[in-house]
């Protein structure tokens, strides 16, 4: 008689449906990752960090289909001078992409890159480090089975940012992308990502920032209402390095963005921020884990969600300060603005501190539109709907302020305004 084990069954069903790419330099890392998945099992609703987000549709052997959305907005970042790399349903499309040669940076394609020792030293390595103390089985699954992605190594400061464009064209597409990024000592790199990518996307980005390096990341997840995405960023920061990541999410039936950062060198800075807006079936989950393992580092998490018409927002954010990480400056804020009584925000902020000389603060709030402010605006003649929009944008302002480039900030604000205007 067998005992029912839904986790093992789910894992076996998924693994049976997948074929591991073999033969390349990444094969040993993929095999290790597969062993990790088998040991951990895919996520289950009873797992501590999956209580607020149901993983079933991310685990399923087949991606639930998602209609391709006819995006009528001007393409993002089109005015930006950038090196464009295009993926269609998770497959790199050289025809639509720019030439990979780019001063100050080496770019290869995971699917066909010859043995790049720097990438071999990172592929699946940061992901594996990020499995402790909290298991992230979908990331290990990605390492084992990723079919495409880019390997980017910045050796200087490229003039143009690298822009990863994710197009979605097949309603049944299931994409598994794995990017590896290495910012060498003193180098600096900006990576922009945008687009829905596929009906279902599982994406991992491993980012290793060496001493004095700087990595900036801007992401806008696509507008397709039915798309699903689980993404992981694993970052390791050397001393005096900088890591800044901002994500805008507009729509999407399911988004789980995990960000796992290790500050391993003194005086490093890590900022992660996100603004998410959605309605109805929209379910958006930010799960962040920041480990301070060196002196005098700063980390900052700013997450804001605007939820409407029964949408759900989740925030699970942790700051772990190890014993030697004195003078840590940690800040975390997660806030939701609920535009109606049907929407919910579930937050789990955590601090775990073993050093004695640290300044860490965290806060989480859930609220409705401030009626006093609304009346103030209306009393000056601003119509109710416009006044509400102003207040929604003002609620998101602290997160939007994390975007350093004013052109990008204004592009993304336009997206938010569009979202609001369509809901009039």
């Amino acid at each position: 008689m067998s005992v029912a084990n839904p986790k093992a069954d789910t894992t076996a069903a998924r693994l049976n449906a997948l074929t591991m790419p073999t033969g390349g330099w990444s094969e040993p890392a993929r095999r290790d990752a597969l062993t990790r998945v088998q040991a951990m099992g895919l996520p289950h609703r009873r797992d501590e960090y999956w209580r607020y987000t149901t993983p079933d549709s991310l685990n399923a052997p087949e991606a639930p289909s998602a209609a391709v959305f006819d995006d009528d907005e001007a393409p993002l970042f089109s005015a930006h001078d950038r090196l464009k790399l295009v993926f269609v349903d998770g497959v790199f499309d050289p025809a639509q992409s720019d030439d990979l040669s780019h001063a100050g940076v080496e770019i290869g394609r995971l699917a066909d890159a010859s043995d790049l020792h720097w990438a071999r030293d990172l592929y699946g390595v940061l992901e594996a480090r990020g499995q402790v103390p909290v298991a992230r089985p979908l990331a290990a699954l990605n390492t084992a089975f990723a079919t495409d992605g880019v390997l980017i190594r910045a050796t200087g400061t490229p003039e143009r940012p690298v822009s990863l464009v994710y197009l979605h064209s097949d309603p049944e597409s299931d994409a598994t992308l794995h990017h590896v990024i290495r910012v060498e000592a003193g180098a600096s790199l900006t990576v922009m990502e945008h687009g829905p990518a596929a009906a279902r996307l599982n994406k991992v980005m491993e980012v290793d920032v060496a001493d004095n390096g700087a990595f900036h990341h801007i992401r806008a997840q696509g507008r397709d209402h039915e798309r699903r995405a689980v993404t992981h960023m694993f970052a390791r920061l050397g001393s005096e390095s900088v890591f800044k990541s901002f994500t805008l999410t507009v729509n999407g039936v399911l988004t789980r963005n995990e960000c796992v950062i290790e500050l391993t060198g003194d005086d490093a800075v890590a900022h992660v921020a996100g603004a998410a807006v959605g309605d109805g079936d929209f379910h958006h989950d930010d799960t962040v884990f920041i480990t301070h393992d060196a002196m005098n580092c700063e980390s900052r998490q700013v997450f804001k969600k605007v939820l409407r018409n029964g949408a759900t927002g989740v925030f699970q954010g942790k700051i772990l300060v190890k014993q030697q990480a004195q003078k840590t400056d940690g800040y975390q804020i997660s806030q939701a603005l609920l535009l109606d009584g049907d929407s919910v925000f579930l937050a789990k902020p955590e601090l775990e501190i073993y050093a004695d000389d640290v300044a860490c603060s965290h806060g989480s709030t859930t609220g409705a539109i401030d009626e006093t402010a609304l009346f103030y605006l209306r009393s000056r003649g601003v119509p109710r709907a416009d006044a509400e929009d102003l207040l929604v944008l003002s609620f998101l302002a602290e997160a939007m302020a994390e975007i350093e480039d004013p052109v990008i900030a204004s592009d993304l604000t336009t997206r938010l305004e569009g979202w609001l205007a369509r809901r009039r």
Partner: protein
Amino acid sequence: MLNIKNLHVKLEEEDKQILKGINLSIGAGEVHAVMGPNGSGKSTLAYVLSGRGGYEVTEGSAELQGQDILAMEPEERAAAGLFQAFQYPVEIPGVGNMTFLRTAVNAQRKARGEEEMSAGEFLKVIRAKAKDLQIDAEMLKRPVNVGFSGGEKKRNEILQMTMLEPKMCILDETDSGLDVDAMRLVSDGVNALRDAGRSFLVITHYQRLLDHIKPDVVHIIADGRVVKTGGPELALEIEHNGYADILAEVS
């Protein structure tokens, strides 16, 4: 200009009557001062006129230039020419002072079927007006009232008033929190707006403001009613004797 008849107002949430039959009529070009003890209903009157929620009109009417304003949305009242400078202006983080004011000016213009003000013209006008009120450019860029001192908030209210050019201006304790110099600036701002087509209802506790903004009529409100109406001398009398005599006289 403004005609208030037998206005009765209670709180929506509780069974508490606050205004108990206010009668007040302000002619075009007139300045009326309203005084009265704390909690007598002065701010409530102002709020009910500008349309804040939480109050229920149980009886009576209020008309602005013949229009029933109580039936209108707050933004419609504003477009019709009503303006309230608040006793406690609200801080709105994340909304720039300039963005807010330009949105407001143009929304009112649009509602009245007038042409919108261009960004350039708006900037020119607001700079000049801000200068008169000694509001510096940096303050204009900040979020609405955020980090403003009490007096700066009040000056910002007057700046909004001068930009919006309302017909009926209600000033609720605009003088409180102002230093002597700021009081003069604000009064100059108000006086500059005085003309035959614009009226003022000035709520204050102190005669001092009325030295600068000379009222035509002074009303005393107590316990939700106008208990006495007179000329500017009424304000002087209260300054010297307080409310006790008047309240005794009317009860």
